[in-house]
């Protein structure tokens, strides 16, 4: 393939560069999707209907650990992209595996948080509009991360089987975009849901 020093391998084919642009556009749509969920949540934040409020529920320690797990996973995912540019399959796969484990840790923490809310605090999806908004916003992000984990496993297997080709490179690059995007969404959840929820 016609890789030069100037064109990264994932952009080296027309198909690759089209798909990367397409994915950026898709992320634009995802931003709209999450914006709608954020608006719904913020409107409903005070609609607790006598149920627990955000102040009652959120634990600083828990969501700080979740945040650090996800932020670090974004960093390791970025390190993977550097290895991708060096055409180093082993390094790339190693960093993706680290990313994946951090993502699993994040999902485990979040599931634990949800289960605690439901079983200990009796705060369920059906309790109030605020909790409907909370579970669906944070849950949609969590579902995206879980989907990303399955997707990343598929990409890792393909990288191990085929090495760095224009196709596998494009896939590794796109899952990276997706992962960083989820990190950005989480930063908004961290600010607009958890931090704001502790003060307001």
């Amino acid at each position, binding site marked *: 393939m016609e890789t030069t020093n100037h064109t990264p391998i994932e952009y080296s084919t027309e198909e690759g560069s089209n798909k990367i642009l397409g994915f950026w556009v898709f992320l634009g*749509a995802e931003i709209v999707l999450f914006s709608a969920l954020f608006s*719904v949540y913020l409107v409903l934040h005070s*609609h607790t209907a006598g149920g627990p409020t955000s102040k009652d529920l959120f634990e600083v320690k828990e969501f700080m650990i979740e945040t650090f797990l996800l932020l670090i996973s974004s960093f390791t995912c970025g390190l993977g992209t550097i290895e991708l540019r060096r055409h180093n399959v082993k390094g790339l796969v190693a960093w993706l595996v680290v990313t994946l484990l951090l993502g699993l840790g994040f999902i485990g923490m979040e599931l634990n948080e949800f289960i605690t809310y439901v079983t200990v605090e009796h705060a369920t999806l059906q309790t*109030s*509009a605020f909790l409907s908004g909370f579970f669906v916003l944070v849950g949609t992000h969590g579902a995206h991360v879980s989907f990303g984990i399955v997707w990343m496993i598929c*990409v890792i297997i393909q990288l191990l089987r085929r090495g760095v080709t224009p196709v596998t490179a494009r896939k590794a690059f796109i899952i990276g975009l997706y992962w960083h995007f989820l990190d950005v969404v989480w930063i908004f959840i961290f600010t607009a849901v958890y931090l704001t929820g502790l003060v307001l």
Partner: protein
Amino acid sequence: MIENIKSFLGSFFVTGDPMIYGADASIALATIGIVFYLTYFKKWKWLWDEWLTTVDHKKIGIMYIIAAILMLFRGGVDALLMRAQLIIPNNTFLTSQHYNEIFTTHGTIMIFFMAMPFIFGLMNIAIPLQIGARDVAFPFLNAVSFWLFFLAAMLFNISFVIGGSPDAGWTSYAPLAGLKLDPGVGENYYLVALQISGIGTLATGVNFLVTIFKMRAPGMTLFKMPMFTWSTLVTSIIIIFAFPVLTIALALMSIDRLFGAHFFTIEAGGSPMMWANLFWIWGHPEVYIVLIPVLGIFSEVISTFAHKTLFGYKAMVWSMIAISVLSFTTWLHHFFTMGNTAWVNSFFSVSTMIIAIPTGVKIFNWLFTLNKGRIEFTTAMLWALAFIPNFTIGGITGVMLSLAPADYQYHNSYFLIAHFHNVLIAGTVFGVFAGLHYWWPKMFGHVLNERLGKWAFWVFMISYNICFLPMYFIGLMGMTRRMYTFPSGLGWEPLNLVITLGAFGMGVGFLIMVWMIVYSAKYGKRDTTGDPWNGRTLEWATSSPAPEYNFAHIPQVETVDAFAHMKEKGTAGNIYKAPFQAIHMPNDTGIPFILSVFFFIAGFGLVFEWYWMAIPGTIGIIVSMIVRSFKDHEDHHHIPAEEVEQTERAAGRLS
């Protein structure tokens, strides 16, 4: 045991109405007929190889249009049933429940399963050809979009025989559409089917945006693109920003109904008003998603048959861009009467009126294109010419509706019904009909019969005015929308009778059109040149129907109206000049179809809350996606140069 089965079947199938039994019988007969035909003539393999697995944008476009015409029939029958009910006062032809279901499915089907797929069909056929490309950017995704739409349409349509149709209007307002006031599976069908087809629509938006940005022929800068391509680009951007909001609105209401959440309920802090906001934040841009592409079609048709370059090209482009931005700032005008403050209503009133300015710019540009043109009155041109005055009436009554204080009078009356049918029929429907006539030769290699086409045009267009103009007056007389019957003595009888006659006249126009299609398939003039209209844009540079690879050589573009320019310079033959090279094309694949069938299974399970069905369906979806991911490393093939040469020779392009 037998009692249980009986009661299950009694609620599973819709019972009690002779018309529904008639529909059951005709669905069963049609299915048996199709299966028999395919088996007897050994067509199953043909169906699978040529259609179900294709990734060719031209075939996908044809499938979109066939499905859209079927849905136009279904939605049209709904409309005729409504008008039959309203032909005389105190009529008992339909019950109130049946009427509710019919106006809901009429609106939903016409917007989601007729207008959009019809437009996507025309985009699929024309866009890659207009920009000189061999396919869309993502042919696989294109097939996914189509099959998601198609199976979602089937899912929505079986609701009237299995389980019951949705009945809360196509806008499905909360709390009316919530579980408490609307139990049963009808609304679930609405939510799930639209969610599935919405995924396909979003993918179409992404696909055409990337196609137009990245796959244009060399030399075709953005401001040398044909106007239909521009309109598709603008529409794609609207889709990308609008559809995710619908996704969320539908998802939240599904979660409310299926899992007992409180987004739009009245109790536990839910906010029914939020549904109206979310729905119309998508819904108003949606109006432009089905309008802007046809503005592009009219531009192509008017310029072609006036035999002139489009007047005010740049003004046309910028006005579309302005409309697309403004379309996101007007959603609240759909509920001026819901108790917003005066300032809020004023803002949305003004933002709505502003849209009339770029729209007016476009109207004048078409008129100036016609000015001093050598106008050729083909059927496509007639539809385009009829669009201008009829659409303008709809546009002006739209400005009347945008005046918030006056809207308190017009709101939810037949005045509104008349307004939006005036823009949607004179805009979208006339537009897709014009496009159908215009691109038909490119799709099938023959021209539609002009004589029958003109009959259909006049019958449909006159009936349409007989149907909708009286609605303005009956609306001002106080008749509100969604009334299943009306009392005598209000002076509404004559106009309702006229409206119904007009509606049936439109039905006659549709039948003539169907006859025209059948007749033309047999006797239509063959298009041997590939350029039956003396066209101006690149789709007319290749043969009709276009070969699989579209262009033997990718054309070089120098100006707007690239093909007209090539014909002037005598370089039009360059795209099929020997020697040829092998052409790189995507492989056919069955995955989009299979994936969509799993969506159907999962969706049907969700509608009935049968998780034993929904969960395996969802697993099927995920597995299909994984299989695709592992198989897409070698999904292309080459058409050898000799085969290209043979194809061009067979099309009569090589001497």
